């Protein structure tokens, strides 16, 4: 199996300060780590490789220092490292980031699965995983807490976490999965993996290498701006429709028709 895991290097949040003038994070001098949710994605990728064979490719978009995060991923068991790094990517919002990463994934090609962490600890949007799936036109399953069955090249069956329990979902492969921390306990590095990480070479791609046009990346390709950050109130009530896609579509149409919405 060729498994791609997308990670992000983030500042170690407990030490972060806010610049009072620009209202942004002060990143200089703050130690950087792999986004914690991504460590679960890496571990799951490594477990799948141990079970089905193949390789785990770690992909990240970031400044040159993001290489340390890639090496930490190899220490955690991954095989290859790809760094998407270019001044042109600076200032990217989640749309531009998803576009850039999906371009890189397209260039890697011939993959079976894309794994991402649920969300990044600094941005907290949780949008890049879904964004990648959209750009690549792949099925997306979010908040995966357990992979129940996997037939390489064919299908995957997973347990996903919901507000009040869990769902079982199935999807053809390849697909994009975002994972939650309940999925596994990431392993510690070993002497073997540390030595591998020390000597392994990082592949660096620029915007041109992945055919990412200027208008779709970086600040220019970022139509969104963060306006407000708050914790949403949990929703309750509503109605769950069950059945095949066709059955559910019929039920939904009838509900909408009853309410004179169609």
């Amino acid at each position, binding site marked *: 199996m060729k498994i791609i895991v997308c990670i992000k290097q983030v500042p170690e949040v407990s030490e972060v300060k806010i610049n009072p003038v620009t209202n942004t994070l002060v990143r200089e001098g703050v130690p950087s780590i792999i986004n914690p949710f991504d460590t679960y994605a890496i571990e799951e990728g490594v477990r799948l490789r141990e079970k089905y064979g193949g390789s785990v490719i770690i992909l990240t978009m970031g400044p040159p220092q993001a290489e340390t995060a890639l090496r930490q991923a190899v220490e955690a068991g991954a095989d290859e490292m790809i760094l998407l790094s270019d001044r042109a990517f600076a200032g990217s919002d989640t749309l531009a980031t998803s576009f850039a990463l999906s371009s890189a994934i397209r260039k890697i090609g011939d993959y079976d699965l894309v794994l991402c962490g649920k969300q990044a600890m600094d941005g907290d949007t949780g949008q890049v995983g879904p964004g990648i799936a959209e750009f690549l036109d792949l099925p997306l399953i979010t908040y995966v807490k357990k992979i129940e069955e996997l037939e390489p090249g064919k299908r995957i069956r997973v347990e996903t976490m919901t507000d009040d329990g869990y769902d079982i979902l199935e999807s053809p492969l390849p697909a994009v999965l975002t994972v939650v921390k309940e999925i596994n306990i990431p*392993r*510690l590095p*070993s*002497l*073997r993996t*540390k030595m591998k990480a020390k000597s392994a070479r990082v592949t660096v791609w620029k915007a041109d290498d992945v055919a990412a046009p200027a208008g779709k990346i970086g600040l220019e390709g970022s139509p969104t701006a963060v306006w407000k950050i708050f914790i949403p109130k949990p929703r309750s009530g509503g109605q769950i429709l069950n059945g095949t896609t066709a059955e559910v579509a019929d039920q939904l149409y009838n509900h909408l028709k009853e309410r004179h919405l169609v």
Partner: protein
Amino acid sequence: MDYGLTEQQLMIKELARKVSKEKILPVRAELDEKEEFPYEPMKALAEADLFGIYLPEPYGGFGGGALDLCVAVEEISRVCGGVAVSFAANALGAYPILLFGDEEQKRKYLPDIAAGRKFCAFGLTEPNVGSDAAAVATTAKRDGEYYILNGSKQWITNGGVAGTLTILATVNKARGARGLTAFIVEAGTPGFTLGKKEKKLGIRCSDTRVLYFDNCRIPAANRLGREGDGFRIAMATFDKARPGIGAQAVGIAQGAFEEAVKFAKTREQFGQKVSSFQAIQHMLADMATQIEASRLLVYQAAREVDRDSKEASKVSAMAKLYASDTAMKVTVDALQVCGGSGYMREYPVEKMMRDAKITQIYEGTNQIQRSIIALCVIRESANWK
């Protein structure tokens, strides 16, 4: 400070520190309280590839030496001396095989030890045999293609969990030290049974056992070296492993010292931090200095041992002696700095003091170490110009 450690040694240090913090620190108090063997921490150390760091690559190791082992043991000891000795005792049991085993024995036993799949133990001590190693009473009688072992061993670290044990027995009591012979015994061999597990003052999670050999039949192919090589094998093994105990002592001392500093910086009396009192400051200064001196002596001893230098025995005895005496002094003083809190089991320092004591006793008491050093020094003086 730059101790001149290699890249591999620095990686080992970082790994051992990480595993100790995440997998040993959270359970050390409970393992000590319940006197339970640290299976999970040992598994974590094995998964980090640390069991094989001093073993050659053809047997699944990393080709490092005593210094690599010391660096790992020191970091583990900083968190728990009990887990550290459970880890380090494997080397004590493996060194005889590594140094004196033939190719077949090495290929049969070392890979499992390197991977942490089977634990290892060294069986010399008996009820009547402590410092007087030559007086071993466990007998080994040749019977065709076998030897038959009879006797008992006492206080064997990892005795109850080891899959592979190196046992010293005599083929001829009348020959004293020259009758001693080393054998590899596998757990589960008929005639080999486990006796009681000891209740100890410290390193309580370490498995310390009585072993019984009752007409225990082992293949003659399991003999290490020749008959009568046993004493030499034991002494060579101790020379190699002694820096490791020194490292255990340095680590325990370091852990206790750090607790003392942390405490002194937070505790306030008479309107000021306890760390601002000169009495406390001088104690901390002495502790820091002695630990540093011990560490340098241990690292140098490990280097001498790896070089097989002529001074290896002497320096390795010095390192064990000095580091263990330091560990005892530092842990007692660290407890003192922490005052009443240091006496409470809720704080980690009293365990460190209880763990430190054994380092002055096992693998050659500090009295024996002094005798070794004196004999080396007197012998060397013949070459002084």
